[in-house]
């Protein structure tokens, strides 16, 4: 694709857009280091009068952030893995045919997503309790989160499978591949990018999942970072400095990784990897 003319003007516009869009992120970083009352000063201060960076090490130590982060990672990996394994095949089949059963399947996939997590958590808790899964709380959360992400994954990956020419798969079958072989060796590699992007999106949502974890994981040592975050809110007090510092610690690394990865993935797509 040809480079646009006036590339600096575009860059300038992009810069302005991102400054506006990233402003809340900036506000998160500086709210953390304002004094607890300066947060509420009118007119607001765009830079803290007396920045207090000690909030970061304090929160890091008081909340055992690494342990929380590790649990978040475990849950996010588990849920993403499960979703990709179950969802990819389902999306592939729903893209391959065009009949009433596919309509029913798609309809079900969406309808099963109808209830917000806050309403789903009670029956899930009850169910997990009955089959004894509460003893493996992180596994239970992984199952719940995977079910929650599945429709999202299926719908998006199905759209990606739709763009793969059917002739390619048929040619593979003629060449002597079985259905499984054609799926694994021909169709999957072509949808790789889309699957990766969706998996990444699901990973990040699962990383921050709160409602299921808060309810199902009773042992503090197994709780993810999102649950740790909520403990700064008391009946009469809200430790905004700690909330913002804690969230900065958890957002920054994951955002950095994402920027690096998305550059490769979406750039790969933009270069026309699909066609």
């Amino acid at each position, binding site marked *: 694709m040809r480079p646009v003319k006036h590339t600096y003007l575009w860059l300038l516009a992009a810069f302005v857009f991102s400054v506006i869009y990233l402003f809340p992120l900036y506000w998160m970083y500086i709210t953390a280091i304002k*004094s*607890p*009352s*300066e*947060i*509420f*000063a*009118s*007119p607001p201060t765009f830079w803290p009068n007396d920045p207090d960076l000690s909030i970061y090490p304090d929160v890091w130590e008081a909340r055992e952030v690494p342990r929380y982060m590790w649990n978040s990672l475990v849950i996010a990996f588990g849920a993403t893995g499960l979703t990709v394994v179950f969802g990819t095949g389902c999306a592939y089949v729903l893209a391959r045919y065009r009949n009433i059963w596919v309509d029913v399947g798609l309809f079900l996939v969406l309808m099963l997503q109808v209830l917000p997590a806050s309403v789903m958590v*009670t029956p899930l*808790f*009850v169910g997990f*309790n009955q089959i004894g899964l*509460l003893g493996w709380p992180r596994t239970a959360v992984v199952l719940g989160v995977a079910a929650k992400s599945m429709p999202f994954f299926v719908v998006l990956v199905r759209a990606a499978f739709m763009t793969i020419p059917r002739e390619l798969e048929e040619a593979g079958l003629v060449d002597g591949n079985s259905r499984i072989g054609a799926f694994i060796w021909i169709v999957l590699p072509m949808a790789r990018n889309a699957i990766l992007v969706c998996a990444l999106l699901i990973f990040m949502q699962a990383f921050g999942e709160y409602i299921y974890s*808060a*309810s199902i994981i*009773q*042992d*503090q040592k197994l709780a993810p970072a999102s*649950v740790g975050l*909520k*403990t700064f*809110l*008391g*009946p*009469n*007090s*809200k430790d905004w400095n700690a909330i913002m510092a804690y969230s900065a610690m958890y957002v920054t690394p994951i955002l950095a990784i994402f920027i690096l990865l998305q550059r490769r993935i979406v750039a790969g797509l933009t270069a026309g990897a699909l066609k």
Partner: protein
Amino acid sequence: MKLNMILGTVAGLSVSLGALMAHAQTTLTIWGLDGDNNLIGTLAAEFDAANDDIVVDFRAIAFDELVPEALKAVATGNAPDIICLDNPDFAMFSSRGAMLDITEMVAASDIIDTSVYYEGPLASAMWDGKLYGVPKATNTIALFYNKDLLDAAGVTPPQTWDELLEAARALNDPENNVYGLTWSAKGNEEGTFQFLPWIQMSGGSFEEVNGPGAVKALELWKTILDEKLASQDVLSQGQWDSTGTFNAGNAAMAISGPWELNRMAADATFDWGVTLLPTEVAGGQRSSAMGDFNWGIFATTEHPEEAFEAIEFFVAQSDRLFPEFANIPPRSDIALPSTGDARKDEALAVFVEQLKYAQPRGPHPDWAKISKAIYDAMQSAMTGQASAQDALDTAQASIDAVLGN
């Protein structure tokens, strides 16, 4: 000294118990908040350390999740042995038989003496004449004021509703981003916590919210808002955020509680004081809200003795509540030690005085519904969707339905 003796007694008692039971290890699960410098977690860990035969399993739960978690646990038979619940939520559990009746145990206890407790906190742990819990701590609200601004305007701390309005008018200074007053009229429990005392000061109660005094109070709140003597954001901000604007110097008076003292002492660049909540008329009836949590034992516990022992241990630490955890003990026999900050000490004296008038919310099993009726009425009147009288009449109808009148 006294503390050490009590500690010694408790430890001695549990050591001998432990020797008797040999290796029989008992696990006690305790659920509570982890706020207040981790008060509950710290005490739970200490109890664990002090008892070889008891293992304490403490789970910290966010404030919002505490009751839903407890409800789910009761429903599925996973209830902990001990829980620390916000006082208005307590009756929901005690009235349904979910909590252990500890009336007899407390009567026989050498450590817990109900006669020294304030009436309000104790009442919140009672149901139908029986005691189901022990207050952990207590708190209330009063009127903070910015001494510098009051002196500059020649205003004395208001003692009646009319004086409050006059003071707010005199102190209001939009040029310098200063409102006369701030408080929380949020559409949640905090809003009820702040408004119910006004109903009670005028002779009403949670069972009767539409008396002329309550209407007058709500009209006063609306006037303050309409005349822009307070930020309209009192409708959407909680007490912590609202008092934050006071600390930042953007409001001359604030209605809030003692949990605020440490932040205010550290942040406020002006001199401040606290006075009792203004009454309807001079020398009129006083009232205030009552906050904080109650300890309780779930009826399903397999270790009632050990659980009660744990609560006795917590109660025995009452004199540490304030110095270490900034909690006010719910009893009159423990003097608060000096904080080393004269403003804080003065403020605490006012709060302790105000506590005498603090009334529990309820106790009622359906408190949350009563509370919603009250804050809904307050908000619909303050946003001009209904007159104060109509809004409170609607609330009264909802409350009557809940009370079954």
